[in-house]
């Protein structure tokens, strides 16, 4: 079972780089915001998978919840900033 989680995590790790490409070269700010939000979501799933691999899920659940929360607030803040600058 640990092998399955390891492979799954490595697959998600590879997908992070595809999102990173969109965040670096993506046309426009909105694509970048969406890509960074997707990277944050993948990161929190990877954190949970790490918890399963090390058999300490109850520790990693706390961290991943904080990560999801700050990701949400960060995305809203970036959107608000763009709204205030009048780029939307």
């Amino acid at each position, binding site marked *: 079972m640990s092998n399955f989680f390891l492979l799954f995590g490595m697959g998600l790790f590879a997908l992070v780089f595809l999102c990173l490409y969109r965040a670096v070269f993506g046309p426009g700010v909105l694509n970048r915001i969406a890509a960074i939000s997707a990277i944050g979501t993948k990161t929190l799933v990877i954190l949970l998978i790490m918890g399963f691999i090390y058999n300490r899920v109850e*520790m990693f659940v706390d961290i991943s*919840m*904080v990560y999801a*929360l700050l990701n949400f607030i960060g995305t809203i803040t970036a959107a*608000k900033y763009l709204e205030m600058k009048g780029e939307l």
Partner: protein
Amino acid sequence: MISVTDDIIIRAVARILIPFIQVYALYVIMHGHHSPGGGFQGGVILGASFILYLITHGLEDAKERMSELKAGLLSSFGLLIYSGIGLLCIIEGSNYLDYGGLSTILKVIPAQARSLGILGIEIGVGITVMAVMYSVFFDISTGGILPEDEEDLGEGR
């Protein structure tokens, strides 16, 4: 200046989410000594909930809930809790922040006094970090100039 957002989804989600964020922040502060987290991390989450309120409900509403004066007072109050517990340990005859000395005041064994002492320290750190995070965001988003000051400054700024 940050005004209230006209998107009902953002406002409704923030209104539902903010109490849960704050309860979770209190959990992180309380469980700091046997799980990841602690005073600083819990304070950041607590500050993030206030920042979320400021972003979604605008500066006017946020100032009624938590003004800059309140944030400044709370940051000093958290520091007072921290240093007060530390000085209480000195008064009881042990080193600064050596919570074992608190056992005579709390009437528990020294091991329990250490656990309670570190909890008090983390509550103080959490309050300070929350207030400072909020006031930093407040100052950056307004540029240090509140709307009521703009009339005094006039056009010349």
